[in-house]
């Protein structure tokens, strides 16, 4: 149905069809009106026709009457006719007349005298002669006057035609004319039957006399049942419709006055109204068809439309339910297909937007729920919650459901004390349509009071508050903090005023006094207002270094360092001076840099300190002069005090001993097990922990000391140290114990001791010798080195000026001179090195790196094969300068030993290594080596096998190594070489 593929076309068609129905209906109405008008016209015309026919019939009858009157007059004149020719006359009249069938002249006896008939009836003429008409119906109506009389109509036996008899009285008889009404019928025949018109003439008895339809004229139809005919007979002309059998007439009837006949005109309505009826029927038909077609198309459209519309509806429902993935089949309507496509597009768009909305909503929800506060929406004025964020459950502990379900939830959960006020405030502000925030307490599910800050936005519609939006923030912590702060502010003020120190608060930049406490007012005898307007000078003594400028510098200093403490000569408002101790501290108070000055009156303390100093002086005099060693130990067993008597006993000065432990200084290792338990007893407060034990002096002497120890406690009774009185009882004790212990082997002991003493004495002698040598060397070196320098300079100048071939023979002597200057200098150096106890200045360094650098500086003869293995990776604590001296001496000796051994494999092997807690340096040569005799004397000063040198090289090596707490070992075989092993003790933290 291509016409209906467009909904527009289908609906237009439907509309046109429906619209045609009223048009048709009005047409029908019009036709109905038209037919009525036409009917009226037809009625009038019908009546007119009846009247016209009536006039014609009347004139016809008058013509007949006039003919008959003429006959009468002719007969009556006598002059014209002879009596025997009357018959012929009559016959002639009948023959020439159109209407007469016959004319009879009756005598007074109503018998025929004369007659004239139609020629065809001449033969039967005699039948009528003497025929008595006295009983004729006509005579019943004869009047005495001479007015013609019409008989009833009848069917002539002669002609078989309707006829009527007209009688005209005469003086001697009566003239009767039988009139053939066929001519009347011929008259009526002028009114065509076309158009269904029937014209009839009915006699006074209602019987049909003439009819325009010939066949009907012959039938003696009675019209007595036609109401118009009946009315006409009574003298009333009418027109009306009349049903006769199947036929439907519009009939009119009118009366003909003489002889009271009725003209009837009938119109066949069916025929007359047929076009109108046709038209009407056609219109009705069209209407019906249009209605049916419109209904059909409408139904069809409805059916065809409903399917896609339902589908669209379903689709819309699915979209509403969130199902966006559907395809619609083609509906048959392009517009709906377009609509469906657009809905599909729309659903995609909705889907995208919904996804976006869902994600936005989720984001919004997450956001709202992530806010550390309750976001809510409330209906106003019912105060029923519309939305509450999840945080509500976290903050107050009630299930979210409760918030929604209980319309009075909010009011119920406000702390009873805050409830009235909060509710009233909310109502007031909401009615004023003002956004507001306020604070109140809510009671959480666990009964705790939560301080809530509620920020509310009022939503207004139609100038009325309808909803409230808000956020509740838990600020219990802040509230508590504020309370605590105000509490602490009060505390601070109390402390500030209750302290006994005077406190100033200064502005850090200007030094101005911002605030002071009560103690300050008391201490400086000043009132508060004056204190705040006074400058720093007002509170200072006023002379340098206690002037206002000094005070400012102190403030600046405190600002830079953070704090400082010093003594200050202060002045009261009364002018009285006093000593104070001032503690300055920079602080930030209320975002401003301030200096807090705490001033303490120390006048009393100063006096006390002075007194204490005097006591101390007396005491120290006592301690310093007492003959007993007096030592004060701290709890960690280090020296806190060491009097001159102790120094005299042990040889260590106070400075050497302060902070040192007795172990390693005055208590030898072997005595440690005796001393340690004693120390523990002393620390525990044992006042009887005295002892008699061996000690060692600074110069290594073992002495016997008697110790009297007293623990010292502070005011609280806690031990804070131990005071020891010590006396050197070596002489007495040694003698006693030696006597006691070694009496049995006295001889042996004496011998041994003697040997020891001798050795010691030898060493002492040597040391003494060396000391003298040292002194001598130091003095002499000055004196010798100048001449040496002069000689060296002279040699240099000589050498410089004696260049050239002619002086070549002088080169050797000059070299020798130079070398010997150097030798002299070396001898002096060696002597100085050996004889003077140089202080060893130790520092940490990596021995391998150091040694490598040293070896780089030295030069080695080409014939010597050198091999270094410096892989100890040790860090040693040593005096690198002294160690350098050692190494140079050792290597020089090795190279000399190698030089003394001609034509041999000359190898110099140097190695560093770590063995246990020692770092060892090995120098091995394959030189000449040393005999046992030589080996025994190498450490002896001034022993030398060389032509050069004073024999101090090896003793210097030994001195320096031992001075480091290390040592040196020589291993040698004549002809094989010498190995020198030098070692240093590794400090604990120097390994690796």
């Amino acid at each position, binding site marked *: 149905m291509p016409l209906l593929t467009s909904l527009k076309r289908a609906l237009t068609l439907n509309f046109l069809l429906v619209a045609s129905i009223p048009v048709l209906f009005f047409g029908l109405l019009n036709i109905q009106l038209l037919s009525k008008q036409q009917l009226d016209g037809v009625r009038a015309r019908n009546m007119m026709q009846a009247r016209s026919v009536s006039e014609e019939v009347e004139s016809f009858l008058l013509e007949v009457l006039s003919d008959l009157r003429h006959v009468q007059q002719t007969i009556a004149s006598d002059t014209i006719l002879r009596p025997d020719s009357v018959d012929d006359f009559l016959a002639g009249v009948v023959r020439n007349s159109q209407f007469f069938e016959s004319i009879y002249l009756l005598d007074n006896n109503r018998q025929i005298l004369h007659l004239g008939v139609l020629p065809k009836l001449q033969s039967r003429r005699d039948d009528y002669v003497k025929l008595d008409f006295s009983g004729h119906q006509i005579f019943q109506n004869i009047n005495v006057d001479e007015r013609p009389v019409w008989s009833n109509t009848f069917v002539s036996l002669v002609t078989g035609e309707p006829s009527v008899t007209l009688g005209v009285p005469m003086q001697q008889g009566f003239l009767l004319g039988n009139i053939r009404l066929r001519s009347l019928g011929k008259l009526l025949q002028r009114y065509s039957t076309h158009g269904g018109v029937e014209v009839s003439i009915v006699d006074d008895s209602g019987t049909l006399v003439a009819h325009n339809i010939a066949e009907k004229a012959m039938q003696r139809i009675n019209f007595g049942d036609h109401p118009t005919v009946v009315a006409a007979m009574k003298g009333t002309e009418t027109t009306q419709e009349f049903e006769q059998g199947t036929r439907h007439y519009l009939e009119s009837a009118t009366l003909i006055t003489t002889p009271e006949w009725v003209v009837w005109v009938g119109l066949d309505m069916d025929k007359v109204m047929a076009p109108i009826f046709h038209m009407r029927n056609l219109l009705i038909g069209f209407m019906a068809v249009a209605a049916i077609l419109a209904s059909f198309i409408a139904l069809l459209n409805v059916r065809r439309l409903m399917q896609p519309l339902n589908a669209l509806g379903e689709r819309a429902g699915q979209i509403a339910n969130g199902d966006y993935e559907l395809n619609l089949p083609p509906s048959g309507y392009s517009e709906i297909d377009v609509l469906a496509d657009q809905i599909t597009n729309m659903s995609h768009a909705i889907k995208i937007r919904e996804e976006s909305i869902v994600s936005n909503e989720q984001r919004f929800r997450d956001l709202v729920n992530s806010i550390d506060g309750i976001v809510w929406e409330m209906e106003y004025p019912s105060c029923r919650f519309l939305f509450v964020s999840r945080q509500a459950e976290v903050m107050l502990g009630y299930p979210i459901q409760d918030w929604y379900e209980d319309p009075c939830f909010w009011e119920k959960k406000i702390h009873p004390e805050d409830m009235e006020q909060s509710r009233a405030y909310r109502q007031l502000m909401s009615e004023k349509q003002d956004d507001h925030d306020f604070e109140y307490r809510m009671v959480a599910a666990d009964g705790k009071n939560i301080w809530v800050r509620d920020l509310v936005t009022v939503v207004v519609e139609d100038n009325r508050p309808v909803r409230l939006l808000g956020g509740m923030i838990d600020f219990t912590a802040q509230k508590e903090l504020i309370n605590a702060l105000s509490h602490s502010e009060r505390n601070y003020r109390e402390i500030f005023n209750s302290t006994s120190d005077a406190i100033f608060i200064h502005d850090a930049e200007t030094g101005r006094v911002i605030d002071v406490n009560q103690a300050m007012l008391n201490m400086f005898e000043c009132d508060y207002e004056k204190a705040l307007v006074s400058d720093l000078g007002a509170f200072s003594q006023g002379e340098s270094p206690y002037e206002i400028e000094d005070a400012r510098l102190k403030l600046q200093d405190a600002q830079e360092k953070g704090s400082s403490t010093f003594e200050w000569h202060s002045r009261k408002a009364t002018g009285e001076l006093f000593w104070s101790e001032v503690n300055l501290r920079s602080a930030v108070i209320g975002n401003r840099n301030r200096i807090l000055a705490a001033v303490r009156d120390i006048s009393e303390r100063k006096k006390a300190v002075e007194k204490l100093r005097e006591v101390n002086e007396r005491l120290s005099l006592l301690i310093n002069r007492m003959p007993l060693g007096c030592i004060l130990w701290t709890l960690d067993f280090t020296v806190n005090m060491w009097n001159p008597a102790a120094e005299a006993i042990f040889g260590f000065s106070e400075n050497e001993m302060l902070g040192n432990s007795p172990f390693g200084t005055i208590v030898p290792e072997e005595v440690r097990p005796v001393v340690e338990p004693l120390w523990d007893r002393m620390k525990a407060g044992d006042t009887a922990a005295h002892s008699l034990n061996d000690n060692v002096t600074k110069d290594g002497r073992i002495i016997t000391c008697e110790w009297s120890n007293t623990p010292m406690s502070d005011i609280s009774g806690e031990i804070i140290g131990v005071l020891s009185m010590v006396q050197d009882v070596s002489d007495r004790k040694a003698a006693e114990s030696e006597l006691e212990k070694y009496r049995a082997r006295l001889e042996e002991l004496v011998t041994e001791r003697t040997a020891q003493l001798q050795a010691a004495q030898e060493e002492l002698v040597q040391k003494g010798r060396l000391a003298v040598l040292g002194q001598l060397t130091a003095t002499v070196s*000055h004196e010798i080195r100048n001449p040496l*320098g002069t000689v*060296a*300079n002279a040699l*240099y100048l000589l050498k410089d000026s004696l260049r050239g071939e002619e002086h070549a023979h002088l080169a050797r002597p000059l070299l020798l001179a130079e070398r010997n200057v150097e030798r002299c200098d070396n001898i002096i150096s060696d002597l100085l090195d050996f004889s003077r106890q140089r*202080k060893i200045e130790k520092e940490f360094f990596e021995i391998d790196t150091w040694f490598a650098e040293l070896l780089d500086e030295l030069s080695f003869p080409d014939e010597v094969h050198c091999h270094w293995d410096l892989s100890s990776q040790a860090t040693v604590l040593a005096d690198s300068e002294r160690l350098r001296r050692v190494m140079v001496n050792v290597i020089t000796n090795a190279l000399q030993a190698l030089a003394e051994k001609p034509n041999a494999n000359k190898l110099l092997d140097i190695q560093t290594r770590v063995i246990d807690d020692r770092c060892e340096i090995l120098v091995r040569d394959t030189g000449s080596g040393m005999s046992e005799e030589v080996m025994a004397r190498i450490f002896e000063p001034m022993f030398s096998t060389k032509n050069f040198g004073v024999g101090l090289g090896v003793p210097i090596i030994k001195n320096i190594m031992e001075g480091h707490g290390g040592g040196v070992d020589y291993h040698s075989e004549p002809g094989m070489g010498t190995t020198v092993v030098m070692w240093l003790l590794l400090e604990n933290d120097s390994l690796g």
Partner: protein
Amino acid sequence: MGQEITKVLIVEDDPDFAESLMIALGVRNCHVDLARTGEEAIRKFHSLCYDIAFMDIKLPGKDGVESLVEIRDFCPTAHIVMMTGFSEAAVLDKARQAGAVDILRKPFRLKEMFGHIDKLHNEPSSTSNH
């Protein structure tokens, strides 16, 4: 190096040694003055601005280090090299702290002395004006 005459002060009480230095420096195109005591050295420094001085530590009267301190006091840029036959380490440390450029240990090689003079010309900024 020979273009410019270097003004050198020798402070030495040993006349032979002093003379040997003067001879050597004279050869090097230097103007050499001699002071035999610390006081004399100070006086000479007051009257003339020496490019460099070589001063013995051990001197009669004010010793070398004291003189050094005094000279450096009024002439902080004075370029003074100390000489010594033998001195305690403490004395040497004091000399270094007082601003001694170097310490030559007698008997030193003249090359060392010349080295200091050569260095003056290589770094002329330090002593010329004060």
